Each structure stands twice: as C-alpha cells, then as structure tokens.
C-alpha cells in the first residue's frame, strides 16, 4: 500500500518521459516482494506430533482433544506418514463406550472425531515420557518402524500438541510419571542443535499450561497455552449418554476456529491468539512469541496446521529413460527333478510321543557355581598345602 502511495506521489512529481520507467521499476519491485513473501516462511514440509497423556475413561476429553486436532491437521493436508499420534488409552473401543469405534467432540454426538481412517502410532502403555522425548530428538532404536519416527529436517515446520493433566512446571503422563518444563525445553534445544525443525508451534491444553513454555530458550518456537500459572483449564460440556465430559474448552473453541480454515486461507497467528477469550474459556489463554523470528501477523495458520506445498515452475524439458525391462527368467521346464512338497501333519501323535528331547545348548557355568568351586578349591589347598597338587593332577 505504501509502495503504491509512493508511486502515485512520484508520478505527479517527475516529468513525463521518466515516469513510465520509474513505474515499471517500482512495479517489478512490488511483484518481487509479493513473490518473496510467498516463499518467506522457509519451510518445505510439515509434521505434527499430537500427544494425549491421560489414561482412564473419565479422561475421555483429552483423547477427544487430540483427535480433533488430528482431524483438522489431516483435513488441511498433512498426511498420516507425517503425523505422530500418541494416545495413552483407548476410548473408542473401550468397553464403557456406548457407541464403539467413535469419539465425539460435541454433545448429542454430532461430530465423530475418530472417523474411519485413523492411524495411531503410539498407543496405550507406549505413551511414556521416554518415548515422547525419543520421538522428538530422534534417538530411537534402529528397529523402530517409520510410522513411529519424526523424520523432520531443518526445513520442517512442526506442530506439537500436548494435552492431559498438568501442574506448575510439569505434565503428567498416564498417572505414573511426569515431564517437566526444563526437560521439554532441553529436548527442543536438542532438536534445534540437530537441525530437526525450521519453526515449531507448541500448543498445550492442561491446567497451568503456561508454565510449560516458560523455560524454552531455543529460537523459532511459538507457544500457546490454555491457561496461565495458577489457573485451571476447564472442560466444556458433558454428554449424558456417554457420561463424561467430551472436550476441554480451549480445544473446543480452537476446533471451531480451525473448522473455518481451508488450505488456501490467509488467517494468521494473531487470530489464533484471540481464540477462547476469558469469557468463553474461564481461564486466560497465553502465548509466547519472543523466541520466534517472524512477526506472528505474517505467520499463516496453514504454515503449521496444513501442508501447503510450494510449487516451482520450470521450463526445462527432461528426457525419460527407457522403461525398465523385466528380468528374463530361465525357463522352468528344463528342471524336471523337483521334490514333491506336501502339507505337514498338524497333530502327528506318534511322532510327538516318540519325540527326542532337544539337546540343550551347553552354557558355561554360572558365576555362582564358579565362585563356589573356587572357594572349595581354595579351602582345600589352604588346609592341605600346595604340595598335594601333584597327587591330584
């Protein structure tokens, strides 16, 4: 806008022949800027790590929270292979669920956030502090499958969403352990030093959630929480048929906000900060942007929640190579001598009865046995003297 104003002023001020040149020059500068803005976020892929840390049926709302964020993130384009979903307990197929294979977020069962196409990567007892930190830092055992890994690089924007029960400076995992804000900050610093993220958006919906982002010290992290230190995050509404509270207030209003976002929308982070004011949420949501380099007003929601791919147009032509030829197999007819196969006998009674016990592998003697024999030998030689050695051997 400023550039256009300057353009108008200059147009009036300069003499005619130079005017067109200046206009063209300024127009090209403007178009380069908007193209630059289009590519300014600097990320090429999106990941999401969504964690629900609570177990037991009455914590249904935490699973519903996580699944509603999962649903929004999938709807806006992040594929399952780029989402690590961790649910500490199973609510959908829980025996107390009157409608199996469903998790509802609105009362009167309006919206089933579980859906028909869900892939949970870590479930049940696997959701532990250790596994969560290993996923973030990438220090997983070599046999871990790809769907359980966060394979991000230095151009990835990662969305991390945590929900559960928390307190001042900690988040409770499964009623038996907790993760502190210092541990979390250190994990993010490890991620930064290993160049595992370009920008990170951290959202937490627990009681006293703001305490969890107080200790962050790595660059490019933006954090949102549902309540300040000393405040509790409250749940939204119970459903009388299911018998538990269905969602937490902050995530409920955030889900309503996200339902209006589509992959091409230009809504920015400032709108997300305004979600769930004190009148709706009862607690005061907080956010932290001092570690983030860009201005939150220029950060699109889809930079984190969606997977908007950048398209580069090229005019070069590429020659395709010849199609791969299938390997010529040796004709099988040449070999006539083939053993005849047969199915194994499922319960060969006589064979089983006369089965020889399998030879156990010989293991070297245990430490205890060795120690015992050494003691006996020592006592013997002490008592009778070493000169008797030649009589024995």
């Amino acid at each position, binding site marked *: 806008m400023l550039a256009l104003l300057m353009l108008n002023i200059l147009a009036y001020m300069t003499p005619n022949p130079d005017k067109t040149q200046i206009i063209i020059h300024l127009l090209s500068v403007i178009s380069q800027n908007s193209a630059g803005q289009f590519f300014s976020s600097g990320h090429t892929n999106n990941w999401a790590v969504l964690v629900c840390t609570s*177990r*037991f049926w009455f914590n249904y709302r935490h699973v519903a929270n996580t699944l509603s964020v999962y649903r929004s993130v999938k709807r806006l384009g992040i594929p399952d292979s780029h989402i690590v979903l961790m649910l500490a307990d*199973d609510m*959908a*197929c829980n025996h107390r669920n009157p*409608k*199996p*294979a*469903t998790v509802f977020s609105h009362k009167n069962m309006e919206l089933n956030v*579980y*859906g*028909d*196409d*869900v*892939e*949970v*990567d870590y*479930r*049940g*007892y*696997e959701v532990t502090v250790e596994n969560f930190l290993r996923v973030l830092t990438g220090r997983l*055992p070599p*046999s*871990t*499958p*790809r*769907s*359980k890994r966060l394979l991000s690089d230095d151009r990835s924007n990662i969305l991390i969403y945590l929900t559960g029960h928390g307190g001042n400076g900690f988040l409770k995992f*499964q*009623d*038996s352990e907790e993760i502190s804000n210092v541990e979390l900050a250190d994990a993010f610093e490890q991620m930064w030093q290993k160049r595992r993220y370009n920008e990170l958006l951290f959202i937490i919906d627990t009681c006293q959630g703001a305490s969890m982002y107080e200790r962050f010290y790595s660059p490019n992290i933006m954090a949102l929480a549902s309540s300040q230190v000393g405040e509790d995050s409250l749940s939204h509404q119970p459903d009388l048929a299911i018998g538990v509270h269905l969602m937490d207030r902050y995530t409920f209003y955030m889900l309503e906000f996200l339902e209006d976002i589509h992959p091409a929308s230009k809504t920015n982070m400032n709108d997300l900060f305004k979600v769930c004011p004190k009148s709706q949420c009862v607690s005061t949501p907080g956010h932290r942007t001092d570690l983030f380099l860009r201005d939150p007003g220029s950060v699109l929601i889809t930079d984190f929640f969606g997977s908007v791919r950048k398209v580069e147009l090229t005019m070069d032509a590429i020659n395709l190579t010849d199609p791969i030829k*299938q*390997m*010529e*197999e040796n004709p*099988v007819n040449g070999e006539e001598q*083939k*053993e*005849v*196969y*047969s*199915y*194994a*006998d*499922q*319960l*060969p*009674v006589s064979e*089983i*009865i006369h*089965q020889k*016990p*399998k030879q156990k592998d010989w293991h070297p003697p245990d430490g205890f046995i060795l120690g015992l024999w050494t003691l006996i030998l020592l006592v013997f030689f002490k008592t009778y003297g070493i000169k008797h050695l030649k009589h024995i051997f």
Partner: protein
Amino acid sequence: MAEPKFRVCLCMFWAVCPKDDFQEELVIRPLHSGDIYASFQFRTLWDTDFMRENKVSHYRLFPKSLGQVISKFSVRELHISFTQGYWRTMQWGQPFIPSPPGAELWVWFQDSVTDVDATWKELTNVLSGIFCASLNFIDSTNTVQPSASFKPLGIGNVTDHSFLRYATLPREIVCTENLTPWKKLLPCGSKAGLAVLLKSEKLFHSSFHSQAVHIRSVCQDWQCKTTSWELRQTVNSVFDLHNSGQAKREWSLFKMFSRTLTEACPLASSSKLYIDITDNPQGEQFELSPATSLLSQAVVLGDRRTFSVYDLTQETTFGSVRSLNLLIRWKSNEGEMLRPLLHAERYVAGYGLQTGEIHTLMYNNHPYRSFPVLLLDSVPWYLRLYIHTLSVTSKGKDNKPSYIHYEPSKDRVKPHLLEMLIQLPPNSVTEVTVQFERALLKWTEYPPDPNHGFYVGSSVISSLVPSTVAMDTNSTRERPLFSSFFPCKEESSYFVRIYTEPLLVNLPTPDFSMPYNVICLTCTVVAVGYGSLYNLLTRSFQIEEPNPGLAKRIANVIRKMRGVPPL
C-alpha cells in the same frame, strides 16, 4: 470381463508373467441364540519366489509391505490375529478361523535364518508399524517356542521347531486403527467388493470381532511340485441380536453392516456370498430374500453343510436396484444346536494375593470316541508354577499324558512353557490343575494401572476330532475358502484349534505413594531434629537494648550531633 484380458496383455510385454489371483467370500451363519456369525475371507495367491536373489519389484495384487516383510525376514509362514472378545464355543459352535483374545503372532522362519531371536524382534517391530498395534511389547518374556503345537499350515517338509516362535498379547486392544491398515492391504481396499461392508462403527459393536492375516506357501496343483504364496485376510464377527436393538429376529446386510453390496471387486476372480441353510432345508425356520437358486455343499468342521450361494460377479445377483441387501427373516424358533465335540474352560481358583491354582477343563462330548488333545500353556514368569502339583484327571481318575514338555521360566527373561498330549476319554471332563505363587515385581515394572491386574494368555488346545462325515483330503480341488484353511490328511478326523479364556490375575501391588511419603517424612525429621539440635549447640545469647521510643531516638540524634553521649 476385462480382468483376464488385462492379464494376457501384461504377459505379452514381459517374458515371465507372475500369476496372481484374488478371491473373496463372505459366509453368514445364523446361530441358535439369535446372533449371526459373519466370516469374511480374502485370499491372494501369487506364484513367485520371495527368496530369490533379485528382489521382487513388481507387485500387483499382493501388498508390497507384506511382500517386503517376507523377503527381508525370510519368513516361511506368518499368522497374526487381532481379536476383541471371547469365542463362546458352547453357544456359537466352532469358528472357521479360531483366534485368542488380544493379539497373537506365530511365525515359522526359513532354515536359512541364523539368529532367529534377533529376526523375531525386528519382525515384531516392523509389524507393529504396519498394523498400528503395540506388537513391540513382544519380547523374550512372552515369546515361547512350542515343541509340538503349531505345525506349519502350509507346505513344509522340515519341521524343526527352533524356527518357530509364538507370542500372544492378551491385553492388546483392537480398534479402527488396526482395521484401517488391514483394509489397505486388500487389492480393492475398502472401495469395492465385500470389503465395503467393513465399517468400523458396526463391526466393533459386536460380541466378538477378529481380524487376521495368514501368509503361507501352498501347492499350486495336485502334483505339488511348485508352490505359490497365499495371503489370507480374514474377519470373523458375531453380531448380537439384543445389542443391535431389534425386537424381532431378523437380520439383513444393512442391519449388520449399515451397507449393502453393489459390486464385486473388479480384480477378484471370484466373489461369493454363502448363507448356511443346513438347519433350514425346506425353508421352515427362516426365509431368505432375495432368493437364489445356487446351492453348494461343503464339508467343513466335520459336518456336511449346505449353503445358498450368491455370486457377486454376476450382474443378475444385484437385481434391478443394483444393490444386494440380503434379508433373513425367522419364522420359528425351534431347533437344537449340535453340541460341539470339544470345548474348554479355564479359571483361577484360590484366594488372597499369595497363591492360586489354574484349572483347565476340557470337555469331550463324543459319546464313544476318545481323541488326543495337545495343550499348550504359556504362563508369564511372575506366576511361579509349582509343576510338582500338576495333576491331570478324567472322570475322577488320574490320566497320565503321553507327552509332557516343560520349560521352566527364568525371572524377567522367559515365561513357563507347558505342553502336554492328553487322550480325552469319551463323554468326559478332563481337568488339569497346577498351583502357582505370585511374585512381587520391582516397583518400576508395574504398568500405570496395576490394580487392573495382569493377563495370562489363553491356552491353546490342538486336537484331531473325529468327524461325522468323510473329510476331503484332496487339497487342490476347487473348494470354498472357509473349508480349505486347515489341511486335511485323513478322512476320519479333522484338525481343530480352540483357545481358552485369558486369565486376569491380581499381583500384590505396593503403595506407589510410599517413596514420596518416605522422602517427606525423612526430610521433616531431619529438618526438625537436626535443625533444633544445631540451634541448641551453636546458638549464643546476646543482651540487646530494647528499642527506644521515637522521642528518645530524636534526642539521641541531637546529642550525637552535639558530641554528648546518648541516653
């Protein structure tokens, strides 16, 4: 049909054409209690060799993820099942494909594998990623190597049991996240054919639900000189009459699955729907609509059953509305259910948190024939079995097993393995009892909800049960899928495998708040005790003037200025 022409065209371009074939079928069997049993089977046959030097690169009907698993881990046979619920043999009869509650995985490796345990561990991790299940909890503490059970179901001349591993996770939950990747393994996915009926909201709202994947090598033809790989994906479920909220006894595809069939999978060479009408020969018990003239008889589970067949590859099956919604309406309620010849129960007896007793009961309901039964028990290490108290009794008398294999457990390393071959006398109950003692675990070994209890996996009972009709031993004749799962070697008996209930055992649980209590108490005692002692020893008393009033203070200040001693 377009499909065979397509295959022929492919064969023209390449020298060798790996032949693959896909069949799907659904068997619906009404049960006597009013419930209905639906069994889906999807079979892909592929004539290829995964163990070849050059890796197989072109996958058509066979899913690539499973093909890569087979070649990477040198798997000869793989059977994995996820089940929710317990199969009630007395009310429902025998299932076509048995499975225990929770997750069960048993694998036969090729004899080229050198380190079976390491390969097993990697395989369980990879499968946990493919099926979104916590199969990575399978480790040496719940894996056993059966010595006589679980013979390979496919081609096998060598049966060295050191290449077999069996593990079960009775606590594993089955939900939509396990069904989603399972459906993605099918050639048509869940978009066409019988798999459109597999909607999780209805499928999990059932008394019993089981999905399984079975991979093995089978004979290609009657000569059996070449083998092909067979992948069977099965879903068994039993829908409850009262649970689904209906007053009268009437079932339809829409009521069971909330979908109807509109077309067969275009990649399938055969797509059939079978309804068991053996108890309804003249149509006096229930009525089937739309009516069909195709009938088929098959010998399955030792009995000759008659089925009405709907061929979904024919356009006429779908009628003018282009959809098939099968309706079964009951007219009368009589009929005796055939009692299954073999069934088993298991429970824990005893009281308190110190000791207990495991009782396994096996019922032989045949009036005059006795048959052998192989019982496999895998008990976790924290239940210390006292094998000297093992007793097997039938009809009150001691029944000595003809084969016992026992591997004792090692704390935190491996579980107990007990295998016994017992001959069950006719018309009797055989009871196997063994006493155990509960161990106290270290406090970090308890799960987050220890008061729920600890699960002991189901016992597996494999048996050759005498059959009432002659079984078909010709394995390569064209047979419906449900009758060709277990290979049949002799005509007078059929192989059956049944699973008992898993046990839920309470272990003595410590009070987990004790470390916190101890720290608080100790710190308080130290602070109060040591603090007061230190004060007593090191505190010295000094005399201090009381604070003077305001007037005196001002006077003192003036005096100081004048150089006069203060008051």
